[in-house]
């Protein structure tokens, strides 16, 4: 029997954790569907066997994509515009898991502010904006 009471768990942390947890579970399911599609589709613009062969042969990223049917290096906009493609859906699935961090940070910052942790709420907002900027590619070389 516990001799002392359990300390309260911060709501900001629970909110943060729940959003990411469910986001990750959903993203894993998307990745599974994407993987199956990749192998089922015929005549796809991005063939699985080509990608695996090229990667294992040690070709660099630019060469792999330049020699593929799409003939361009894909970014997130490309993947979104071709989301019915297995490879694109797989990357979108992984990205969805990664992106689940963003709403988690913002919602958590609200609860941090309400619990009078104003400094951390502001730090969370700054972190959230940085994470939001990362996918845009503004700072990419």
């Amino acid at each position: 029997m516990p001799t002392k009471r359990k300390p309260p768990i911060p709501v900001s942390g629970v909110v943060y954790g729940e959003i990411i947890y469910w986001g990750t579970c959903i993203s894993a399911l998307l990745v599974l569907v994407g993987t199956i599609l990749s192998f089922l589709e015929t005549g796809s613009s991005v063939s699985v066997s080509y990608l695996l062969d090229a990667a294992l042969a040690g070709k660099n990223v630019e060469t792999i994509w330049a020699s593929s049917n799409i003939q361009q290096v894909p970014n997130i906009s490309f993947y979104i515009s071709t989301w019915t493609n297995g490879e694109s859906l797989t990357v979108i699935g992984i990205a969805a898991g990664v992106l689940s961090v963003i709403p988690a940070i913002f919602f958590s910052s609200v609860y941090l502010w309400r619990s009078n942790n104003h400094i951390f709420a502001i730090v969370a907002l700054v972190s959230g904006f940085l994470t939001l900027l990362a996918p845009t590619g503004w700072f990419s070389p």
Partner: protein
Amino acid sequence: MVKAKKNNVVTKMTWTKRLPELQFLILCTVCCYAFLELFITPSQLSGFSGLSGVDLILLSFLLSVLVAIISVIAGVGGGVIFTPLMLAFTSIDTLIIRSTGLVVAMFSGLVATGPFMRKGLADIKLVFLGSLPILTGGFAGSVGAIYMAQSMGDTGDSLVRLLLGLLLMAIATVFVLGGASTEYPEHNDPSKLGRVLKLRHMYWEDSLQKPVKYKAHNIKTAIGLLFVVGFTGGFFGLGGGWAVVPVLNLVMSVPLKVSAATSGVLLAMGNSAAIWPYINVGALIGVIAAPWMLGQIIGGIMGAHILASIKAAFVRKVLIVMLFATSAKLTARGIEGLFGISVPLI
């Protein structure tokens, strides 16, 4: 440290039993790979006698599960095992390996975030305190990696292998000497900044059946170190589980269990920015990264179950030997590429 890690993962073990959604995910993954293996017959891969694309994906998934189990038991992030091994023993482009390495490093932490927060083991204030240095460091590291690959080509790849080989040797040495971690560190010097930021918290310690209070110290030093860890993790695609726990535990005097949980949550957030430069240059290839991502989620859970029944110290020794061997191979490949000197290593 091992004992504390064991307690931590035993805690994880109990929550997995109560989460039907995770069991559903495991079932779906197993069914998916069984379906692919039984009903899809893709062309064989050139250079891999008798191995098809599906076989390779299944093999990657199984390896990822193994890596996740070892990393959970040894108390390190999966990226520390995945990235060096792939860079040392395959000829896959280093950017592809490093982007997949970040996925490996990130997803076991992402799925564990919910349970750690629910249990009150991860400290949300420490997570956000470390978020800015880890995010900016990780992002700068991945941008630097891409810039280096684009401007230096093969020389850059060799330099990355050499630097990672040396870093890995340092990590393995830290593990050999790393008996200094303490479960409940005590610190007599009160930290002014820690007081201002109200960095004091309490968590319920199951093994003691009582709450444990702690205060964070050396905040400025820790922030600087976390930036370096973030940069290294983003640049090499390693994550940083090997370094964040010591920073929280040894530098900031945070209890080991809270350090381990906070580290996983913090790295998941930090790597979420670091991965984007790789995605936007096409370095994240879905079909390659997917089995590694799923393996990390499932292997992390299995590792938690297995840990209770094996000697974690033995696995840690195996990991140290593996890190030294991989670092030797990486250093040799780096020297070969940079100076054209043939180093006779397997």
